[in-house]
């Protein structure tokens, strides 16, 4: 089995590199007279940072989305992730979570091969406590909505941080909280700043005048995400109008999506449809599909886990890059750092 490729070393020239790669990239591209002095200076600074990390001011106290203060007496060495977010963030920090939960009984494909080296901790809403205990993690990262009733159990096993993870603000705050606990706050800040910069860069390049909708379904019940959900927020940063619009209760983060009737979908008639869940097109027999612009123009795509769990640094960047390509294929090339299994695929609707 091959060793995992750190996220910062992934070969994608178009990817806006996270914090860890920023300084080295700038220097290798410029072989000037200052190259070696700068390199030496950088090495010295890096050594200082490492030394200061080792001597970080623990105990560190952070607050999670439960408004609970958690104090870390020392730097956590092992992290178990009972949501994809934790594993994603660890990857962005060039580390690896020891255990990971599943969504719909599948490991998230966008995380690539590394998931095979993590212990399967069961479905995201029903953690296998026995396996988690065996891992004996210093830090457990989870989603508040699934873990609230069992929080005390998690706290018996290790330090526990629970997050809401709906909006971009949630994503940024969670990244800062975890990286502070890991004494990597600077990296966390850089990840957030880089993503914001990347969004701005893409926004400048995006032509706009496209509408889209992000749906998921169970049997013949369709749901669509509101504006404030991170994936649809990214969509809007690409000058794409989210056809579902804003939540009727904007002050509340939940619900982040709502039931969508086919009649309403027909009225909204977006240019692009992104559909999560299932291999088959959702209720493909329904007569409305054939009347939709997106279907007629073959712009309906089945998307993967990262769109419904986009709050990690890796996921949100993948979503941004892939969405940009799906909405504006002429302006944005297809990102090449997404594993095949996690790529968006066209959905076809045969007339019946």
């Amino acid at each position, binding site marked *: 089995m091959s060793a995992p490729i750190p996220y910062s070393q992934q070969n994608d020239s178009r990817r806006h590199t996270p914090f860890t790669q920023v300084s080295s990239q700038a220097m290798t591209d410029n072989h000037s007279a200052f190259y070696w002095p700068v390199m030496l200076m950088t090495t010295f600074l890096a050594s200082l940072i490492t030394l200061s990390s080792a001597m970080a001011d623990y105990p560190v106290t952070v607050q999670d989305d439960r408004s609970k203060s958690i104090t870390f007496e020392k730097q956590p060495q092992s992290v178990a992730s009972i949501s994809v977010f934790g594993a994603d963030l660890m990857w962005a920090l060039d580390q690896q979570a020891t255990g990971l939960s599943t969504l719909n009984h599948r490991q998230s494909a966008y995380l690539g091969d590394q998931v095979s080296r993590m212990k399967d901790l069961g479905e995201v809403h029903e953690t296998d406590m026995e396996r988690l205990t065996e891992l004996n993690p210093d830090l457990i990262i989870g989603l508040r909505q699934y873990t609230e009733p069992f929080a005390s159990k998690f706290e018996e096993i290790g330090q526990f941080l629970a997050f809401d993870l709906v909006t971009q603000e949630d994503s940024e705050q969670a990244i800062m909280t975890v990286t502070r606990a890991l004494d990597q706050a600077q990296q966390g800040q850089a990840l957030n700043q880089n993503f914001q910069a990347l969004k701005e860069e893409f926004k400048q390049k995006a032509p706009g005048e496209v509408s889209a909708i992000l749906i998921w379904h*169970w049997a*013949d019940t369709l749901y669509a995400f509101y504006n404030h959900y991170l994936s649809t927020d990214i969509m809007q940063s690409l000058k794409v109008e989210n056809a579902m619009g804003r939540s009727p209760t904007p002050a509340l983060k939940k619900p982040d999506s709502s039931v969508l009737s*086919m*009649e309403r979908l027909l009225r909204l008639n977006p240019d692009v449809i992104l559909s999560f869940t299932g291999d088959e097109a959702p209720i493909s027999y329904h007569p409305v599909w054939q009347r939709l612009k997106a279907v007629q123009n073959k712009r309906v795509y089945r998307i993967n886990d990262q769109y419904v769990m986009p709050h990690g640094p890796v996921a949100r960047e993948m979503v941004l890059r892939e969405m940009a390509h799906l909405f504006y294929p002429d302006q944005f090339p297809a990102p090449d750092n997404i594993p095949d299994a996690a790529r968006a695929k066209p959905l076809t609707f045969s007339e019946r």
Partner: protein
Amino acid sequence: MSQLSSPDKTFTVSAGHSVGKRQRISLLLPVVCLFIIMLAGLASLALGDTLFSWSAVFQSLTSSEDSMTRFIIMELRMPRLLTGLLAGAALGMAGCIVQSITRNPLGTPDLMGVSAGASFAIVLGFVVLSLPPSAMLVMGTAGGFAAGFLTFAIAWKTHLNPIHLTLSGMSIALFFTAGLTLLLVSADSDVNGLYYWLAGSLLNRTWQHVDQLWLFVFLGLGMGVIFSRPLNLLMLDDMTSRALGFPVQRWRLILGLTSVVLTAATVAVAGPISFVGLVAPHVVKLLLKQSLSRSSLSDAAESAQPLQMDHRILLPLSAIVGATLVCVADLVARIQEVPVGILCILTGGPLFVYLIRKQGGYDH
């Protein structure tokens, strides 16, 4: 003229006059219900994400042009309306049959275990077997029939005695509900849609659903109407019926299977909207009692064949009231796309409570 005696007093009524009033009373309720259905139905076709004028609705109903308005009205709203009407009628009649064959006023199609069996089979199909939505009818009907069969098989030994039939049905319902709960707790994390369906829904129903449902419902409704006389006799004590040579067990089985057919097909297409089966027959009985008390018909005249106990009237009226309830509930449900099962309780519940409080109940 005939004289009828009661323990308290003596009444003199005209037999012909009595029959005429009975007919008028039994006709009034369906006429009122059909009027409500017509209004609610037209509103269902006109109201939605896009509002249409009455003239646009009538034009769509009468023309065959290929316009977007006609597509929305005829391809999206009409099948939803018809599915709701068929489901409501089926559940209203099934509830009435179950209440009668078990002699249990709290009887609902759930009492035979059919709703639970159908729901379990459908969720099993999605969660474990990953079947497409088009398999819902087959799975639901198969599950409902399996549950109904088990209920009758367990109670068969006691000649389908009402109490044993009830207990048997409850056991089977609990068994399948336990299985359903097990599936729900072991299901994927995205189970919102599953709960939505389990609350009873008419969202996104198409002509395909109407095609799947109408035959079962008309078959069941026909059987119910044809077998209403034996159902009247089933209300008698079993010993008395048998002494009169009436094959109690056979008719209880036939009528029970009728309710199974009606319920299984409906749950498969619209999810479990069980409240309709409970409330529709009671609303009919309470309204009939109210009508009778307002008329000049005497208690004594009615005691010979209480109108609210005559299944020739009760069954079709339960079907009509059930259809009305679902139709009106869905009209409200579509405003925010709330599951129609919840709206049936929210709209039918207060009506039920009002009638009970006003009437002080009725004798079963």
